């Protein structure tokens, strides 16, 4: 299930690198849970409706925030957490939670990304190279991470037939430098095409693609 949260306008500037704050807010609502340290079976997009003002972001008309879970149990916990404490950050608070039941997409679908997608490749020396949408090897790592997470979500048979790739025909694709707790990542703002069983495509829409989906990367619109 996907939840669309509506947030009231901020009362203090929101820092540009606020993604880890959003992660913190989610875990405040979810409470102690197995999703915190393990593989994230949820994804969340970036706050919509921002304008850069000075050293931060301004959400004069409030913000919209999409959070998706494959488990109804986790989405119920999130809603209960919001009811207890609807504050987010910089004076913003949740005033509306709108549910969206997962649509049927069929065996293939192209999704815009809700933020940016991170893919990396292991180097022989133990380091990791960032792969952007321009590099065709990125599709392999996108597929591999998606299959791992589909496995973890219980879709073992569907995972084997599922692939993910960047839509390189999109003429507005670009890369973006994302800072998470001081570490910078080169991520891609480029639509992603998922092919597989209808159940796997639905799950991918909820799980997101690429790495660090639990930290606000890789969510799909």
């Amino acid at each position: 299930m996907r939840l669309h949260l509506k947030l009231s306008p901020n009362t203090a500037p929101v820092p540009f690198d606020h993604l880890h704050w959003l992660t913190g807010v989610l875990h405040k609502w979810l409470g102690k849970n197995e999703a915190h340290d393990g593989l994230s079976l949820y994804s969340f997009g970036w706050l919509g409706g921002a304008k850069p003002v000075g050293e931060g972001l301004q959400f004069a008309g409030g913000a919209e925030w999409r959070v998706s879970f494959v488990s109804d149990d986790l989405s119920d916990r999130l809603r209960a957490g919001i009811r207890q404490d609807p504050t987010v950050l910089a004076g913003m608070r949740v005033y509306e939670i709108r549910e969206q039941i997962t649509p049927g997409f069929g065996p293939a679908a192209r999704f815009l990304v809700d933020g940016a997608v991170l893919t990396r490749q292991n180097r022989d020396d133990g380091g990791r190279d960032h792969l952007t949408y321009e590099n065709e090897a990125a599709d392999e790592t996108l597929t591999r991470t998606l299959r791992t997470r589909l496995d973890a979500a219980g879709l073992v048979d569907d995972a084997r037939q599922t692939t993910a790739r960047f839509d390189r025909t999109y003429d507005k694709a670009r890369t973006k430098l994302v800072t998470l707790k001081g570490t910078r990542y080169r991520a891609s703002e480029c639509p992603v095409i998922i092919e597989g069983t209808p159940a796997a495509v639905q799950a991918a829409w909820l799980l997101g693609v690429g790495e660090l989906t639990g930290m606000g990367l890789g969510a799909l619109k």
Partner: protein
Amino acid sequence: MTLDFFLEPPERTVRGELVVEALSPLSMVSAQPGSYYRGATAPSDAMLLGMLENALGWHLGPIDRKAALKSLRKQAKKAHSKTEWADSPWLADDPMGSDSGFVSLLGHHLAFDGLREIPQTLSYDDLWARLQRDPDGRTFFNGSRRYDARIESAITRAKQGRLSFGDRSAHETLSPDEVVRAPDESPVHYKSLRGRFPTYSVSPTPRGYVVPLGEYRFGASATPDVADLLAAALEDPAAPLYLGSNDGWVDARWEVL
């Protein structure tokens, strides 16, 4: 029917949730529009307050409601005119009402705190039989399906374009019998046939409906007395509960957080 809760200061110390489950499609129209009744995906606060008053059995018309509020406020003022509540809206104003003029008795002692959960909804339009009154004789002419059989021939001629109905100065006001006998091409004022149509016409109007696929939840705060009243009334409502139109049946419960 006891409204004693109103005499207590509106210290809304109980935080709770109103949980609403739709039992049929809902058409929640918050304003009086023109030719299309646009349904909202969630009820307004005024609709929720109205639903709760139905559960409590408070079926007061606008005049009795205003009189009840005035009398209650007078009693409350007497008891609290020298306290910190002297200038509060509770003793000074009617609670905020809806676009249709409904003012709830509960409005000061129960407030929705803004946090609401809206389930996914399926939506569709249907035709709704709107009853409308037509004082100047124009709307019923094209809107009402019922009229006196004695003017059938005049209506037929009007549909064929042989009689010209309108409301300009050139259009003459005749008696219904004169209209029937009037020669072709005669300009006739709408009002001429007003008496041969019902007082209210029934006009099919497009209206939006939603089918909610889950429960609605509304965060709220209430005084302890009102919280108790709501919990008891929703457990055993005095009347069927509905939102929007009167066939938008719902089930509701009050949960204290």
